[in-house]
């Protein structure tokens, strides 16, 4: 009768661990979220004679409803992600009601909004967001598609 050799078992365990790590991040469904208002027009930020290039900003609220049903009981981290849509950077800074973390996010990056055990099938919060950009847009209208990712421990 063949018995598995210890070296083989170790290799198998490492492979499984690597597979688990590579599975992160997991895209979370937040189709229950909505922004208020759904469309926003930027406003000019004050500009001074001693600093050129002041950009634009806008404020909005977002009612977030993130589906975490598949991860109830698991621990990990939830990130807000803003893919880069063009070379001109968008900065989002937000405050929350406490369920999620406040933070700052620049297009092309992701920022932690929750860490710990997922205790309920949804993560809900209302965040107040300030969006800022420069004056180097490539077009006249932009579509920002934020989303959320879960990195399981």
């Amino acid at each position: 009768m063949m018995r598995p050799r210890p070296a083989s078992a170790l290799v198998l365990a490492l492979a499984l661990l690597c597979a688990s790590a590579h599975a992160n991040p997991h895209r979370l469904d937040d189709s229950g979220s909505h922004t208020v208002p759904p469309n926003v027009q930027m406003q000019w930020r004050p500009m001074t004679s001693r600093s050129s290039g002041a950009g634009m900003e806008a404020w909005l609220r977002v009612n977030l409803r993130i589906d975490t049903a598949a991860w109830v009981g698991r621990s990990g981290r939830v990130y807000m992600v803003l893919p880069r849509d063009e070379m001109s950077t968008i900065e989002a800074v937000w405050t929350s009601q406490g369920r999620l973390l406040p933070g700052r996010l620049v297009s092309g990056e992701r920022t932690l909004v929750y860490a710990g055990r997922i205790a309920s099938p949804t993560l809900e919060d209302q965040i107040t967001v300030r969006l800022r950009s420069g004056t180097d847009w490539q077009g006249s209208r932009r579509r920002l598609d934020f989303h959320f990712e879960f990195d399981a421990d």
Partner: protein
Amino acid sequence: MKAHFAPARLSHLAASAGVLLAVLQASVAHAWSLSLDPASRRVYLHVGNGTAGADNSTINLVQVSVPGAQLGNGVAQAMTSNSTQSTSLYGDGYTTCPTPSTQVMVGASYQRSNSSNGPASATLSVTSPASLVSAAGDTIPFSQISWTVSAAGSSVPGVIPAGTFSGATQTLTTVPANRYIENCHTFRYANSALRAAGTYTGQVTYTITSP
């Protein structure tokens, strides 16, 4: 002699852009996403006393009384201003014109969201009538009035250049996109000829335009 100056003026270009599209998408709300419209193209002009971000109807007065012994002797006479605007109205509240009693602050900007959203610059100009006129109908050419410029704390105090009124519309400078320019204008009367006694007045108007 009195010279009236134009009120601060605030203009918005293409202010209504994007409203229809906003209504069309108002019922669509899925996930944390949104459509983002840029700020409308905008020009801003501030002359003398003004109000940040709003229209101001003040027309400041610049004047000089020439002493009888110096009438027409060719010695330029400094003019005073009733402007009290010493601090910049745009942004940081910096004291650009520390002595507004002899200065009129002029500030202008032109903003656009991207290089295809209008030309690369706007034009700042001033229009003066041919002459200042007295109640008796006597005249003094507006070209008798000139101005120097300054700006406390600025590395480019001449960003709007000094000059002499031409009695017509004259370009002062171009305002590059997404820059704010500002300095202080101090006026003087050339006093190069004898004039009939009287109070002579005339009004100049500053304008910023972007096609």
